[in-house]
């Protein structure tokens, strides 16, 4: 078994470089090391100027998303042993602007997340004295899968629609909107429909399905979007056939 493995890492410093370049490092190889451990080794021992995001090291914070050999992955969940003895290429998450080395600019996602209103919308707010909202396990089961999103944005890196048209709301944001739409405590489906039935909302999606393939938490954003399209179509037919229905 090889003792070391080569890592090819994107370097980009806006203060010195006009465009990103690659740099090769040789790091120790261990069976239980992931790509993130290799990056930490580089930063600690070889070159402290390598910048990247990470935090929990266990796939729950969503910070360490990067492209590993061209695939969007969480670097804390990608073993070096899957690539050894070949070199591993680590690049910043695709389709986002690169700020520095492996760090991307993600404010676009934050704006879109806010736009879809990811909170419980009630026609009349209950006060705390009225008690909590009750929900059965079956009602929870309906939206539970979509609530598992860790906001890692691997789905955006996988979505060619987002790559070609950065205005697209994107898989994670729509999946979170759907999570609230089908939550039994929420009454805001109409509000979100008005926002998401725009061109850059659900209709920009062409069901490539790669977002679901790369999602580390099995949220199935592609499924969420198609279900949302079905609901939107039903609503449209209803409004056509029964225009006097309550708005």
């Amino acid at each position: 078994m090889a003792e070391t493995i080569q890592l090819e890492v994107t370097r980009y410093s806006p203060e010195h470089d006009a465009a990103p370049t690659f740099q090769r490092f040789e790091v120790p190889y261990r069976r239980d090391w992931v790509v993130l451990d290799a990056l930490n080794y580089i930063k600690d021992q070889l070159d402290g100027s390598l910048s990247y995001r990470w935090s929990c090291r266990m796939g729950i914070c969503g910070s360490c998303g990067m492209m590993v050999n061209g695939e969007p992955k969480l670097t804390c969940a990608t073993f070096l042993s899957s690539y050894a003895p070949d070199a591993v290429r680590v690049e910043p998450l695709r389709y986002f602007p690169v700020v520095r080395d492996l760090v991307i600019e993600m404010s676009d996602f934050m704006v879109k997340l806010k736009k879809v209103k990811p909170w419980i919308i009630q026609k009349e707010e209950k006060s705390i004295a009225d008690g909590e909202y009750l929900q059965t396990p079956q009602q929870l089961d309906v939206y539970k899968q979509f609530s598992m999103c860790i906001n890692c944005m691997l789905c955006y890196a996988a979505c060619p629609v987002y790559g070609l048209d950065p205005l697209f709301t994107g898989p994670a944001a729509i999946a979170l909107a759907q999570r609230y739409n089908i939550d039994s405590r929420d009454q805001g489906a109409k509000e979100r429909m008005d926002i998401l039935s725009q061109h850059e909302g659900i209709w920009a999606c062409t069901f490539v399905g790669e977002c679901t393939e790369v999602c580390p938490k099995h949220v199935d954003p592609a499924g969420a979007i198609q279900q949302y399209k079905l609901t939107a179509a039903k609503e449209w037919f209803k409004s056509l056939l029964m225009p006097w229905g309550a708005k």
Partner: protein
Amino acid sequence: MTPHETKGETQYTAYHPRWYRTRVSTYWWLGKWYYLKFVLRELSSIFVAYFVVITLLQIHSLSRGPEAYARFEERMRNPLMIALDAISFLFVLFHTITWFNLAPRAMVVRLGGKRVPEILIAGSNYVAWLVISASVAWFILR
């Protein structure tokens, strides 16, 4: 704080982050089989449209009597047309199979609080297809 996107010669100024945007190639879909499959799936709709048109012409010529139909068949016997038809048929099959397999992702049916397994929804589509095809075939060949 306004970022300056690099366009070659833009200079970095202190405290103004300069972001780099990689251009997405027009041939983004050639890099991966999954993307290629997607593009082929979308393109198959052209062949579906072609198939529908041919079928409509066939029915139209049928309704005009046996000579019109004979002429139609003559035109279809052309090797180029046969090749085109064969390719179209494959694409229509591809289109149908991918459509049925993806249907359960959009149609979530819940019975008694639990989600109906995907294979049942896809399966029921296939069964319906078989039943309708069998009925049409029986009707024509009778």
